[in-house]
């Protein structure tokens, strides 16, 4: 792994496109640094290459969107970045930590401290109240229930859900549930937030509100956001957009307009 002042040190292998690693703006160091990352599923005739040598840099303070057609490897890439999946080959460092060098258990604990997740299907526990759902990452880190729920309630006020603290997920609209999920992703102050299609289950207006919230509340100088999306309506919120196809990063641009121009 080579990282020099947040700039990639090599062209990477496989399908890496020269210049993919260049950052649009780099207020901090590299949050994510990937070179030549490969990943496959299955064996023999069922073998599928999901990532074919991906080079990618995400800088701290940046909101990076991963876009591309279904099956192009976006979700696999985000899973590798978040330490959920092991890569087969290549280098992958997140905040200068080589995830593949960690044991499964250490990586799980690292995820609990350093990564916040926002899922397409929200994945809120139906039997917990909104505040209790938000408090789960803190409880996983060993914080007591009452203290965790108190902190969660304060954060819920910040995301505009102060009147839904005791509501169950089933009593919330889709937009409200996603706000709860965002609060859950932020409660333990992670440095990396990964979002999988955060607006796909929401209408345009609600999706816009969610993205504004993510950008205003989640993004900080020392934090990075990686969002997988199909939703072109939210491209405007990205600092950088990486277009993927067939397990490769085809292009990294700084705006939606640039992406459209280079198609």
């Amino acid at each position: 792994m080579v990282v020099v002042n947040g700039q990639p040190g090599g062209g990477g292998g496989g399908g890496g496109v020269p210049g993919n690693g260049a950052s649009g703006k780099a207020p901090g160091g590299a949050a994510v640094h990937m070179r030549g990352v490969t990943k496959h599923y299955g064996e023999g005739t069922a073998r599928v290459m999901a990532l074919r040598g991906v080079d990618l840099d995400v800088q701290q303070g940046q909101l990076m969107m991963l876009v591309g057609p279904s099956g192009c490897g976006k979700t696999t890439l985000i899973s590798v970045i978040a330490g959920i999946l092991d890569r087969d080959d290549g280098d992958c460092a997140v905040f200068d930590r080589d995830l593949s060098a960690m044991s499964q258990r250490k990586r799980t604990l690292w995820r609990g401290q350093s990564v916040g997740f926002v899922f397409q299907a929200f994945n809120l526990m139906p039997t917990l109240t909104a505040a209790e759902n938000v408090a789960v990452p803190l409880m996983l880190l060993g914080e007591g229930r009452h203290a965790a729920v108190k902190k969660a309630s304060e954060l819920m006020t910040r995301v505009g859900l102060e009147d839904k603290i005791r509501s169950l997920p089933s009593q919330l609209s889709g937009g409200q549930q996603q706000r709860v999920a965002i609060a859950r992703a932020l409660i333990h102050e992670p440095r990396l937030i990964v979002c999988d299609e955060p607006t796909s289950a929401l209408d345009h207006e609600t999706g816009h509100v969610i993205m504004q919230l993510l950008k205003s509340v989640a993004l900080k100088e020392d934090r990075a956001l990686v969002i997988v999306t199909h939703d072109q309506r939210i491209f405007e919120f990205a600092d950088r957009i990486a277009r993927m196809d067939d397990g490769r990063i085809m292009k990294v641009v700084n705006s939606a307009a640039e992406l459209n121009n280079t198609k």
Partner: protein
Amino acid sequence: MNFVALRMLMGDRAKYLGIIMGLTFASLLITQQASIFVGLMSRTFGFITDTGLPDIWVMDPKVQFVDDIKPMQDTMLLRVRGVEGVAWAMPLYKGLLKARLQNGNFQTCNVIGVDDATLVGGPPEMVEGSVANLRRAESVIVDDVGAGGKLARIPTDDNGAPIKGAKIEPLKVGDTLELNDHRAVVVGLCRVSRTFQSQPVVYTTYSRATQFAPRERKLLSFVLVKADAGVDHAELCARIKRTTGLEALESAAFSWTTVMYFMKYTGIPINFGIAVLLGFLVGTAIAGQTFYNFTLDNLRHFGALKAMGATNGRLLRMILLQSIVVGVIGYGLGIGLASLFGQLTGKTELAFRLVWQVLAISGGAITVICALSAVLSMQKVIRLEPAIVFKG
């Protein structure tokens, strides 16, 4: 995270109640059937329990259980009395004799003849009258169930035919019986433990019992022995065996010998074993399946927790806690219901005896069911890829 585990468990009311019901049913069935089994087996040695005073029972070596009477010569009593360490030894007669009822019917009775002088081996509990009344001439004491049932007087018309709808009159103190052509006067009513023998129990003195019984050379059924203070019972048994050639067993050992006979030569254990096994299997099927389904339904949430930093160990502890909670509740409800059943049927003929060993077996079975369910669920969660949460 215990809180999250419990909320996950109890949040889905239908599944939660389903698991609890399955375990409750298993616990109830296992406890109830095992208690009836223990109750029935206890009845096999009810007579030994009722005869509380002696430490050791001496009998013919061929005796296999308490009702298997192989009479000995009366002289054996004196030989046993002569063994060192024997404080006292008393004769006991036990045999089936026919009683002629007032309406001319015959009823077989279980006649117990106790020592004339000391009345050792007499009824365990008197309902009416006194054991000492046996010292009167022609006296017998009858058990209350027999007196109110098989020995009861059935009103008859002038031709000796039973009057339909007429209330039977229980045998009472002062009434007479005819035992093998000998007159016997009821001087008391007693209460005895139920046994496998359904005949009425009639207590009398040893000498009177041997008069009632058909003349045989050997009439002594058992010798009841009390050990001297400080004498080891096992050693005394061995000494009696050595000296007399008879079998000598401590009361508990004789009870166990009797139980083992019934276990070996009757289908009772198999029948009850099947019922207990059925309870175990049904409980496993219902509770195990529901618990496993509960885990499957929550797999996505376990995946989310895993993605958010919950280690396998933590998730396994959550499942274990859920399993323990449903296990304890199901077991508690099951044994509670079984106890209630025992209370409600306590005064009926149903044999029900809830002992701590049954509770332990039932608890062990429920633990196995919960452990099996938890292991199945744990395997699923350990193999779970947290990437599942990214699938829409």
